[in-house]
């Protein structure tokens, strides 16, 4: 019974992999595109460029020119506007909130989130409209081992589902949603024990089906995958850190407010954290603690948790952080460069440098100004939202 259900669940994912392989999106060879006249926040070494322009060819940034004109290129003039790299959302359930939960088991390590992605859903529009071009699609928190996350370039056309990493992280959850009355585990310690067991027994069973179901865990054991651990309150984060040190692994923690009680440990262990989006109505101390983390040099990144959260949550969080004595660039990095680095895709996205993807957002004014609106969003050189 369970196996069949699982098969049913697996086929679409395979199909979509094939689609992705056949029609690799964003690779269209065309004439060059020159983005001109804007103030460019390249989150890279070049810093902020005034009066520079981007030369885009084949979806990549070919060149960042100091001058303003370039022969044989279609010119788009954004003079007086601001440009930042496309936002990177490091933890989201976008377009598949109900498809991203497999209720039959607690440990479902073979599921790949990519299969649940639906390019036609309105949430994708929302995300693109808010400037999010890269998203890490994650299984939900209800399962102890939810499955494998996939890092996508968002785009609205069904054939062009294009992923940076098909298998990004292994989603593990110590959150309260795991501990339900109608199934094991019913407590946090039980969850940890169960996880340890499944990691120990990984690959011991002979049955091929079993082995296939455990592939995520196996990859984790081999070190091919890194864990992405959802833990909100003190005990959960403490358990997560203990688990990581037990298995000598580096990982990423998706944490809430209580993350700030572990600043020393995080600093030592070089564990980067993803923060749920800031809202207004948060007490000031939270913003202050977040900025203190950044000052320590710990990489933090804000996530949108769509559709639980909202797409503009990223920009709001950066805005509030900026309001709290953080320099604007640093605040912007928490939604562009740092998430890219945490996801390990900084070679492709996250900043505007030569050779990287041409993902960028054009603002009418300063990016973190209440009155400035998004004029255009480009994903790998193509205008995806206006």
């Amino acid at each position, binding site marked *: 019974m369970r196996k069949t259900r699982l098969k049913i669940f697996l086929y679409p994912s395979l199909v979509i992999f094939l689609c992705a392989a056949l029609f690799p999106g964003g690779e269209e060879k065309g004439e060059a595109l020159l983005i001109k006249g804007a103030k460019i926040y390249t989150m890279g070494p070049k810093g902020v460029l005034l009066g520079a322009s981007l030369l885009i060819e084949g979806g990549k940034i070919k060149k960042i020119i100091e001058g303003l004109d370039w022969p044989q290129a279609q010119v788009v003039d954004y003079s007086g506007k601001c440009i930042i790299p496309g936002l990177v959302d490091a933890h989201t359930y976008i377009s598949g909130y109900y498809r991203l939960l497999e209720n039959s088991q607690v440990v479902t390590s073979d599921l790949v989130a990519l299969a649940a992605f639906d390019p036609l859903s309105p949430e994708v529009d929302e995300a693109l409209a808010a400037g999010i071009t890269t998203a890490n699609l994650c299984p939900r928190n209800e399962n102890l081992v939810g499955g494998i996350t996939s890092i996508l370039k968002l785009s609205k056309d069904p054939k062009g589902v294009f992923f940076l990493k098909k298998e990004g992280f292994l989603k593990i959850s110590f959150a309260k949603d795991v501990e339900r009355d109608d199934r094991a585990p019913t407590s946090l310690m039980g969850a940890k024990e169960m996880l340890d067991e499944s990691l120990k027994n990984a690959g011991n069973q002979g049955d091929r089906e079993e082995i296939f179901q455990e592939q995520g865990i196996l990859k984790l054991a081999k070190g091919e995958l890194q864990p992405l651990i959802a833990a909100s309150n003190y005990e959960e984060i403490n358990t997560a850190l203990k688990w990581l040190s037990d298995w000598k692994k580096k990982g990423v923690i998706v944490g809430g407010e209580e993350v700030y009680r572990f600043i020393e440990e995080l600093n030592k262990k070089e564990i980067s954290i993803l923060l749920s989006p800031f809202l207004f*109505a948060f007490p000031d101390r939270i913003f202050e603690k977040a900025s203190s983390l950044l000052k320590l040099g710990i990489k933090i990144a804000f996530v949108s948790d769509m559709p639980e959260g909202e797409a*503009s949550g990223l920009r709001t969080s950066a805005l509030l952080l900026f309001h709290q004595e953080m320099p604007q660039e640093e605040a912007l990095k928490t939604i562009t460069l740092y998430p890219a680095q945490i996801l390990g895709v900084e070679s492709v996205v996250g900043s505007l440098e030569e050779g990287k993807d041409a993902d960028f957002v054009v603002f009418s004014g300063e990016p973190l100004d209440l009155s400035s609106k998004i004029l255009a969003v480009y994903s790998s050189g193509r205008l995806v939202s206006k």
Partner: protein
Amino acid sequence: MCLISLLLSPVLPTFGQTRAIRGAKIHTMASEVIESGVILIRDGKIADIGENISVPQGAEVIEASGWILYPGFMAPSCLLGSQEIVNFESFSPDSSSLDRFDFYGDYSRYWAGGITSIYLDTPKNRLISGKGAVVKLGTDHGAALVIKKDAALRINLVKDALLPPMIKIYPAPVSIENPITPTQKQFPSTALGAYGVLQGLFNFEPYAGDLAKYMEEISAPLKQAQEQNWPIVIQCEKAAEIGQALELAEQLKLSLVISGGAEASQFVDILKAKNIPVIAEVNLRPNDIFPGAKSFPIEEPNTDPKNISALLRSGILVALKPMEEKYIFDLFWITQYFQRYGLSDDELIKTITINPARIFGVESRIGSLEKGKDADILFFQKETGKPLPRLKKVMIEGRIVHEKQ
């Protein structure tokens, strides 16, 4: 230097002695902005304010050059924690929100948001949920905090109010005349019913009957409200509800205040003609903060800030409040993100200072920085490169209650 002197300034009651704040840029919501003015404070009141005023001998001087002063904010509607339960009856106009005010509460978070006084409102989930009061979130506990006892009466025409709970009337004591009855359904469950009930209550003539006494009790406050024309805050969001509210006010000669008013922009002319003030509810969800952001699905009623900006520009008396109670600490943000519609700073700040004070008739004490008013002053500081100035100190009745390092 001045900052140090500020931090050193005592946090003590200032009775008897005079204080002077010198050199600050003052946004008095009464006249135009004073670039470098002086405020004299005595006994928690503003003794004098102006461009060039001589500081008397022995006055303790606060050097505030480089600072921006605003009057303390007034939240036009606040529940002090989203406690939604009032009463079982769907209309209980005799219940007063002052009864659930916590005189000993800790209001430091409200101060951090610049809120020094609020209109303590009654919830939205009953047809007539009761009378509200204007209170100050001050430091001296007790009766001194109450500014105006019965400031307004709230009526809700929104759909939360249209499904009152089943009510049980306890017979006391049980007898043949009044036996134990099962729980009964209550009025109203439709907008029509609400309309009928309200009309019935407002022009109610005493009659003999078993419910007469009760009905008299209930309708007494309404009569009072009509005679002394209290502002009647009517919660109405959709256009239809607003129309209904206007008609009701017309018939019953009520001095109407529209609360919510998401779609009130369609009625601008009428509102202007009858000068009916509006307490506009602003949606502070991330997607609505930034212009042009879409969010799916689009809810009903349409809470697009554009509508509210139309109201603001039309010159109607408008007060702003967040749609959700938890955002009440961000009143300043709420005003500021209407900048994009080209409204001046003072216009916007007025919507959370003097306008609500006018609506609830307490402008003689709070709402602006004028001679004789309470010395509720916010000290802002503008840092270069930041989008907005930041609140650093809060002064209530001449004493500094909140300071940010």
